[in-house]
């Protein structure tokens, strides 16, 4: 399972982290989020160079608001702390790899 991080961890684990980080903004009550979870776990397991974290939008509404998340799941790709790409909705693995490679 990809690690769920808090607002407090976001600075060090995402914004100050070198390289690529994929953040999944999710909610526990969101069906499509649960559908997406194993796909993200596979991406994380197969791509050691990418860190994958989850942000629970109900636990960390401040972080979700900062990135304008109005729908879950929302995936945001950071490189060296900067947003480079994002998408909304549950999607298969090839789409997520494409998002990371774009």
């Amino acid at each position, binding site marked *: 399972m990809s690690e769920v991080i808090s607002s407090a961890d976001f600075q060090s684990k995402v914004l100050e982290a070198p390289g690529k980080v994929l953040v999944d903004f999710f909610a526990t*009550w969101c069906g499509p989020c649960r559908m997406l979870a194993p*796909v993200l776990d*596979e991406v994380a397991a197969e791509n050691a160079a*990418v860190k994958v974290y989850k942000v629970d939008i109900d636990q960390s509404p401040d972080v979700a608001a900062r990135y304008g998340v109005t*729908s879950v799941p929302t995936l945001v790709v950071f490189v060296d702390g900067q947003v480079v790409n994002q998408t909304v909705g549950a999607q298969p*693995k090839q789409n997520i790899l494409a998002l990371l490679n774009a």
Partner: protein
Amino acid sequence: MDLNTSGDALAREPETVDLAVIGAGPAGMTAALYGARSGLTTLLFERLSPGGQCATTEHLENYPGYSDSTSGFDLAMKMHAQASAFGVRTVTEEVTSVDLSVTPNLIATPFGSYRARTVIVATGATPAQLGLPHEDELRGRGVSYCATCDGNFFRGRDVAVIGGGDTAVADVIYLARICRKVYLVHRRDKLRATAIYHERLRQLDNVELCWDSVAEELVVEDGRVAGVRLRNVKTDEGRVLDVAAVFIAVGMRPNTAFLAGDLELDQSGYVIADEMGRTAMPNVFAAGDVRVKELRQVVTAVADGANAATAAADYLDWRK
């Protein structure tokens, strides 16, 4: 950066299995379960988590033997564990094409290819969206595509149904029993629904028909649907319905694009197959929502899956 896009199947010759089930909703999981129990080597392909539409259903109240607290997701996980226990192997890759012209059939994903002696198409269908702003994010917060799934959450409230076909009218009839008032919003001045529904509709005194009307905007309060703004296409008049939920029944979109015309589809895109799931191709079967049928529910999907796997096993026996 080099991302691992190869998966584990690209480097070697495609493996060959007796049965490939495409789609791990209730139909596909049941087909895989029955296939594996019949002794068939079985691969189950799924683009996301197992479960399909069932897994996104919060409360499943009409699956026999399960009480009102069962979530579709939990039921789906149990079905998947059960199939896995009998040797089904799940491949979390989206099938992008199936070549039915070669034997065994060649199944391609973005990460590799596989060969199968029989194929069960169980890719389901997706409710068509209306295309309203914020429609996606309000799904589950007042926007629903399944009245029988979600209607009960709006017991005693006012709701609207958008559409004019059999599904929309059946939704209205269902909702009229549990909701205070039901608006039916249709863009024309008569329904496409079959005659018997018209009569039933006329007998309901808590239904208001909004003819020649299109939904233009969802009214949102506190992150939930609080109404829907309509426009009359003949008079251009606007109107807001104060409703707690908007049920969208403007048709389904079967997930058959990857078949690229290899199987016969009906005019709406559903795979033409008989009750045993048999298509015109002797080794290819269809099960669940993707098949032509009247009632699309978890209970009919699992029945389809059992039938199709049995037909696939029979086909392989007959070939021996």
